């Protein structure tokens, strides 16, 4: 259905934007920092994202997920920065090669530290990191991730599945190295095989 929207006065826009978008600054910064891995770069990225969002705020449909809309702009802004030769370029591995290495799945280890979990997440390829981060940390739906990353929803689901497996594998390596929950894992492994 065609709907006509009155373009707001700039003062109204700022009031709305301040109430609707700025509360998500910390969330956007977190994702930006994950992408940039550099505080200054992340701040630039967030500033650029919110400036662009403010300019485009008349396009935002009220009642939809503003945080997802901001993250979409963030990814779009980041893509532009990558294209313009910024050092934020990400190098992806070939997904099929990675899938080959994931035939065995150990049980999910427990009792790990935050640092170990973060280290494990940082070890998996970037394209899997970002979907795991957006889904499991930022709690976006598959569809929202699909829109933000401009990927088919099937690709998002596939990457999530593989990314989580990889993460569990990495964590299992830590757990085995430090002997965490080995007895419990053995019990769950034997049950799972049955």
């Amino acid at each position, binding site marked *: 259905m065609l709907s006509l929207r009155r373009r707001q006065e700039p003062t109204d826009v700022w009031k709305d934007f301040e109430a609707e978008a700025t509360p998500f600054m910390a969330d956007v910064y977190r994702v930006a920092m994950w992408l940039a891995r550099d505080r200054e770069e992340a701040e630039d990225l967030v500033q650029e994202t919110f400036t662009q969002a403010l300019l485009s705020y008349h396009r935002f449909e009220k009642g939809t997920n503003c945080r997802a809309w901001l993250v979409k702009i963030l990814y779009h802004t980041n893509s532009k920065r990558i294209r313009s030769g910024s050092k934020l370029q990400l190098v992806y591995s070939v997904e099929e090669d990675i899938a080959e290495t994931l035939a065995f799945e150990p*049980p999910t280890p427990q009792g790990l530290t935050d640092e170990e979990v*973060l280290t494990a997440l940082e070890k998996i390829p970037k394209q899997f990191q970002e979907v795991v981060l957006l889904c499991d940390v930022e709690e976006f739906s598959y569809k929202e991730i699909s829109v933000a990353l401009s990927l088919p929803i099937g690709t998002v689901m596939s990457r999530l599945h593989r990314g989580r497996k990889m993460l569990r594998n990495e964590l299992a390596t830590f757990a085995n190295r430090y002997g965490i929950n080995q007895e419990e894992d053995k019990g769950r492994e034997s049950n799972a095989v049955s």
Partner: protein
Amino acid sequence: MQCRDFREMADSYLSDELAVETNHEVLKHLEICSACRGEIAARRELRTRLKDAVRNDKRFQMREGFAVELKNKLRESAHQQKTSHIFAGRKSAAWFAIAASVLLIALFVGIVIKQRLGNKSNLLSNENRAVKFAKDAMAHFAVGDHENCALQHNLEEQPISLEEAGKRYDKAYSELDKVVINPFAKGEQTVELLGAHACIYKGKKFAHVVLKSKGKIVSVLVIGKDEIENNSTASMNTDSISCQKTEGFQVSCFETSRHHVYVVSDLSEQDNLTIARTLQNSVTRHLA
């Protein structure tokens, strides 16, 4: 549902992305499988741990003051947008005013030009109408003179010679007969000079050259513009020759700077016009 199937969809279950039916199957499996309950608990814990790890990590937290700085910048940007919006509005209004002014001026100039052209056009058309009216009126005099002088010899006053008329009325009338007949000497059309004189018909003084062509009498009548009532100094077109039928005769007419010249006959329109065209240059030069 098997444990292998459950493990494949456990994360989607935790993300609440499963279809209702599949969700039911997962729940049913969890009721009967303690290992999978352990696995789902472990994955839930991992997810919580991961979320906390990222959210609590100081690297992923904004430095103090950044949010305030950015909000201030954004507020300023919004204000600039407002200013530019107002400025754009004022600018648009200014452009609109300029455009409207230009349009009004163009409209005014257009009206003035149209009026002037209209006046000029009216003036010209009025003058043309006056000239045509005078020519039409004189065509009747010419026809009358042709009938009463050349054909019926029924004039009240006796004609005088062109030499005499040259002396009395207009010196251009002298030798007009030669000027009229000469152009036909080289032409294919046989035209014979019957006579030439100056006569007065209803008070109008004509220099009158009588020709014969195709067995018919042709009058070439020259009258000064000062003889013509309601005469205008304006000219319709000195090069053009008009031909009209007046009182049963073909009357071709052209004008020179000081005279009107009429060729009257009961020839066809084409023949009458041919005679008028043949003598036009010669007569016009002579009367100039």
